[in-house]
C-alpha cells in the first residue's frame, strides 16, 4: 500500500499544533520544504527539536510556529548567529522563546534513548560545566560498577520526525548516503515519520542493497517526493549546499521586517517546493550541481537458493 502523499497532505495529517517536531539532518539533508509547508499551514505552539536549529528553525521561529527550541548548537555554521531566534531569546521580540539546551552528544543520546525505549542515556559529558545547572534534565547517574558517576539525558520522542533522503520506495523503506547525522535515531524515536525524498524508487532497488537502508517503511507514515526539497541544505550526490544563501540569510534575518518580507516572498508566496524551485531559477539550480560523479561501486550479496 503506497504511502506517497503531497507535502501538503503529509504535513496536514501528521503535524498538529503543540507537537514536538524534529526536522533532523546535520547540515546535510535538512528538509526546508517541510519546514516551509509547516509555516504555510500556520501551525502553532510547536516544540522544535534539532541539534543545530540552522536557518530552517530561524525561519520557522520568525514565522511564529514555535514556542520552544530543544537544541545543542544555535548558529549559522561558518557565518554567524541566527537573528530571528536571538531576537526572541535576547529581547522577547515579538515574544519569548523557551530553550532547552544540551550538547550534540546529549541530543544524540536523547534520540537514541527515545528510539530504544530507554528511560535515560548515559554519557561522559557535562562534567564540571554549567550545563546541568542551565538544564536540570541533565542529571548525574552512578554506575552500578565501582564509584564512577557519569551524566544522563532523558529520552526524546518527537510526535513527528521529518527525514529527507536520497531515495525511498512507496512503503517508506528509506536509504541515504553521506552524512547520516542522527536521522535514524530521530525517526525510530518518533510517533510519526514523514520521509521526503529526491527520488521514489522501486522496492527492488532498496532490496538490492539492504545494508544501505536507514529505516524500514514500518515506521513511516508518509512518503513525499520533492526533488530539491533540502535546498539551501544539500543532498550528497544530487546538489551542493547553497552557501551563498547561508551567507545571504545573515543580512535578511538581521531585521524583523526583511525577515518577514523574505517569508512572504519565498514561503507564503509560493504554493510549494516546485514553485520555489522555479522561482530560484534554472541558473541557480544548475550552479549547485556537483562537478562530477563519484560512484560508490557495486558489491555482490550473492544469490543463495
Amino acid at each position, binding site marked *: 500500500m503506497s504511502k506517497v502523499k503531497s507535502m501538503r497532505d503529509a504535513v496536514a495529517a501528521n503535524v498538529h499544533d503543540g507537537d514536538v517536531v524534529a526536522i533532523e539532518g546535520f547540515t546535510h539533508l535538512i528538509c526546508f520544504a517541510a519546514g516551509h509547508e509547516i509555516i504555510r499551514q500556520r501551525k502553532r505552539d510547536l516544540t522544535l527539536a534539532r541539534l543545530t536549529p540552522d536557518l530552517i528553525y530561524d525561519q520557522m521561529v520568525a514565522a511564529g510556529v514555535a514556542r520552544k527550541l530543544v537544541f545543542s548548537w544555535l548558529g549559522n555554521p561558518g557565518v554567524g548567529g541566527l537573528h530571528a*531566534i536571538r531576537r526572541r531569546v535576547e529581547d522577547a521580540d515579538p515574544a519569548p522563546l523557551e530553550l532547552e539546551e544540551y550538547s550534540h552528544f546529549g541530543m544524540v543520546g536523547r534520540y537514541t534513548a527515545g528510539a530504544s525505549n530507554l528511560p535515560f542515556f548515559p554519557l561522559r559529558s557535562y562534567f564540571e560545566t554549567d550545563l546541568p545547572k542551565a538544564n536540570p534534565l541533565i542529571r548525574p547517574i552512578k554506575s552500578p560498577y565501582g564509584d564512577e558517576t557519569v551524566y544522563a539525558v532523558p529520552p526524546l520522542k518527537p510526535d513527528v520526525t521529518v527525514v529527507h533522503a536520497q531515495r525511498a520506495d512507496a512503503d517508506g523503506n528509506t536509504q541515504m548516503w*553521506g552524512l547520516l547525522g542522527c536521522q535514524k535515531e530521530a525517526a525510530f524515536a518518533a510517533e510519526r515519520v514523514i520521509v521526503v525524498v529526491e527520488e521514489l524508487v522501486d522496492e527492488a532497488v532498496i532490496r538490492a542493497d539492504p545494508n544501505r537502508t536507514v529505516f524500514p517503511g514500518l515506521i513511516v507514515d508518509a512518503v513525499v517526493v520533492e526533488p530539491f526539497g533540502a535546498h539551501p541544505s544539500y543532498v550528497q550526490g544530487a546538489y551542493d549546499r547553497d552557501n551563498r544563501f547561508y551567507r545571504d540569510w545573515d543580512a535578511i534575518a538581521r531585521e524583523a521586517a526583511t525577515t518577514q518580507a523574505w517569508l512572504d516572498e519565498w514561503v507564503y508566496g509560493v504554493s510549494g517546493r516546485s514553485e520555489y524551485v522555479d522561482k530560484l531559477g534554472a541558473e541557480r539550480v544548475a550552479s549547485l550541481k556537483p562537478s562530477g560523479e563519484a560512484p560508490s561501486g557495486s558489491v555482490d550479496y550473492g544469490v543463495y537458493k
Partner: protein
Amino acid sequence: MSEPRPAATAPVGAVSPGAPASAFSRSEMMIVAAARELAGQRVCFVGVGLPNIAVNLARLTVAPELELVYESGAYGAKPARLPLSIGDPTIVTGATAVVSMFELFSFYLQGGLVDVGFLGAAQIDRFGNINSTVIGEYEHPKTRLPGSGGACEIAINARQVFVIMRQSKRSFVDRIDFRTSPGNLGGAEAAARIRSEEGWLGSGPSVVVTDLGIYHFDESGEMRLDSLHPGATLEQVRETMGWQARVAEPLAVTPTPTPEELRLIREQLDPEGAYTK
C-alpha cells in the same frame, strides 16, 4: 558544531626576521602557529574556519599522517575545497569512513581515539575554561551565543585541546560568564584529580594560539605566553587580557610563516581568502 567564527584579520605592522611581517596577516600567523603545534599528532577533531585550514596545512607539512575527524561523521576526510560548514559534501566524498553521529561521538570521541580537539571560544579564563554559551546571565542573556555543540564533550574526551581565538579584554576574561567546556578548572592540581576521579580521557587544554602569540599551560595550570608573534608586543598582550599575564623567560618569537606555508594557504587552502585576508 564547535567552530570559532572566522576572525576579522589585520596585517601585522612591525618587522621581524624571516618573511617580512607585513607580508602575512595575523590570521595566517595564527594558522601557521597552530599547524606547527600539530607535529606528531595523529587524529584531529576539526572545527571549521581557521582550525580547518590549520589542520589541513599541518597535514601538508609537519603531520602527513594526520587524520581529520569532523563531528558531522566524516573520518579521514580529504576535502577538495575549503568547506564553509563542517557538514560540507566535500568532506564526505573520498573520506575513509562516514558514520552516524552516535558512532562518531561514542566510539571515536568518547572511546578515546581523538588526539587533538580544536575549540574556539567567546570567553576563556586563565585556566583554559571556555564559554561559548552566553554573555551575561543564562536566563537573561546579553548575547546568546551558539552553545556547546560538541565542545563540552571534546573538552572532556579529546586527549588534548587546542584553542584558536583572537584575544581581547572581552574574550580573555578573569571570570567567564558560563562554563561550557571545562579546562584546568581552578588549577592544575584540582583538574588532574577531578579528571582522574571522574574518568575523563582528556588531559585538557594544551595550547592557545591567538593573534598575538602562543600560550601553553604551566604546572599550576595557568596559561603562559611562550611565544610572541612577530610584530606583536608584550604591551598589546597585557592590554588584551583580563588577568595578569604569565610570560615565559626567555620569551620566544614565533618564527614567521615560510613561503611554502603561505603558498599552501593562499593557493590551496583558502584561495578566496575567506578566513585569511
